[in-house]
């Protein structure tokens, strides 16, 4: 969601064990139960665990593009594209969530989704 031009990822929080997940779902894997997860805004910044510049991918993705795993403070790991060349990134970089095009849809339209951009060095 976007609020005051700031982008947030909305995750879920288990009402029983307080575990955070992304995306929100109707089950908690820690409780092994169907739960009514609360919608919560997740932290907008995280730490880059690892990344790669992808050169071979299905045709809807424009190569090369950079992907990575980002760890948020709520102990949620997000897989997302990054708005940088691999050469500009290092493990442990601070990154924040943004919006951008990640691929084309089957009918050629632009698919906009969350991406991450760098805000600080490791």
């Amino acid at each position, binding site marked *: 969601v976007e609020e005051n031009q700031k982008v947030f990822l909305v995750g879920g929080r288990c009402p029983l064990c307080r*575990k*955070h*997940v*992304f*995306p929100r779902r109707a089950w908690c*894997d820690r409780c092994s139960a169907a739960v009514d997860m609360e919608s919560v805004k997740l932290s907008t910044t995280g730490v880059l*665990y*690892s*990344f*790669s*510049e*992808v*050169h*071979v*991918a*299905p045709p809807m*993705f424009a190569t090369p*593009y950079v*992907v*990575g*795993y980002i*760890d948020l403070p*709520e*102990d*949620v*790991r997000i*897989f*997302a*594209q990054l708005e940088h060349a*691999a050469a500009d990134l290092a*493990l442990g970089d601070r990154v924040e969530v943004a919006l951008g095009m*990640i*691929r084309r849809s089957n009918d050629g339209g632009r698919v906009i*989704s969350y991406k991450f951009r760098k805000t600080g060095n490791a």
Partner: protein
Amino acid sequence: MREVHVGGVGMIRFGRYPDRSIEDMGRDALLQAVKDAGIDPRQVQETFCGSGYGGALIGQRILRDLGMTGMPVTNLENACSSGTTAMREAVAAVAMGRIDVALVIGVDKLTRFGGGTVPLETTDIEVGQGLVMPALYAMRARRYMHEFGITPHHLAMVSVKAHKNGASNPYAQYQKAITVEEVLASRMIADPLTLYMCCPTGDGAAAAVITTAENTRRWGAPAVRVAASTLQSGLFKTGHRDMTFSELTGRTVRVAYEQAGLGPNDIDLAEVHDAFAIAEVMYYEGLGFCGQGEAKALIERGDTEITGRFPVNPSGGLKTRGHPVGATGVAQVCEAVWQLRDHANGRQVAGAKVALTHCTGGGIAGLDHGACSIHIFTK
């Protein structure tokens, strides 16, 4: 539980066969395995067929034209572990005494997808964001390099070993030695992984006859005993995960070592799921051939060469034998059996008495891997 033996094995050379049907490849492999066991195909009592992309009723489609119809046929899909998942069911069926002769087939035809990376489940959230298997392993590689000080040069050395071994394997898709320089100079797939650090896609089939100790004696087949037959699946983790260590492989091999009453130092050779060079490096540690972060020294000492202390992938592995997903695990079983029979000409591990096969894979968000299957064979 009864003692279970591998009575016969067979496979076709893996490769790109756009003009051959998947059923035809499967029949070729199964007839070789049955011939190797020295039995009539009609002695098979049940068939277990593993395939990643073979589609509905793949086993029946293979067996039909041979008239091997009417018996129980079980088709299994478990991504890269499909073939050895089928193997495990066959072993269990013989061990529990339900049947005496089971046939295992592993088969896939990836050329039907054209080329490029293997297709993944498009409903997966990470796949929709741009995850492809090489990128997943590339991220493991970058993190591993960061934590344990290996370089692309070490990864290239793993590929060079695979090609050196594969050059002596008549069943390998690629039978050509390469150099570290060629690996590093090949085109980038997902950095830091270059083309020659990734296994190829292709087509193939492999088969095995699983039976009792009494039958192998009666048939005069060399005794290769199944000492461990295991399958585990990945644990779901939504938060931090150490991607430099395969928890799933470590957990599965503990079960296998316990079943066999053996440990990593007893393994004379291992056929390991080296879909990417970094994967093999991580599995040295996952299988207990060295501690976490110690693979660098293992590589530098040449310990995993055919002549080393822990020979890994004497066949050339997925890297050069090829990786038609569902066929791979059964091809590993073929190699293990040939090694234990001293029949692996040009790539034989001297005095091999204990062989381990390890298959794992399947991209699914939040899991290390979908499935892992490890078998141990002794003679």
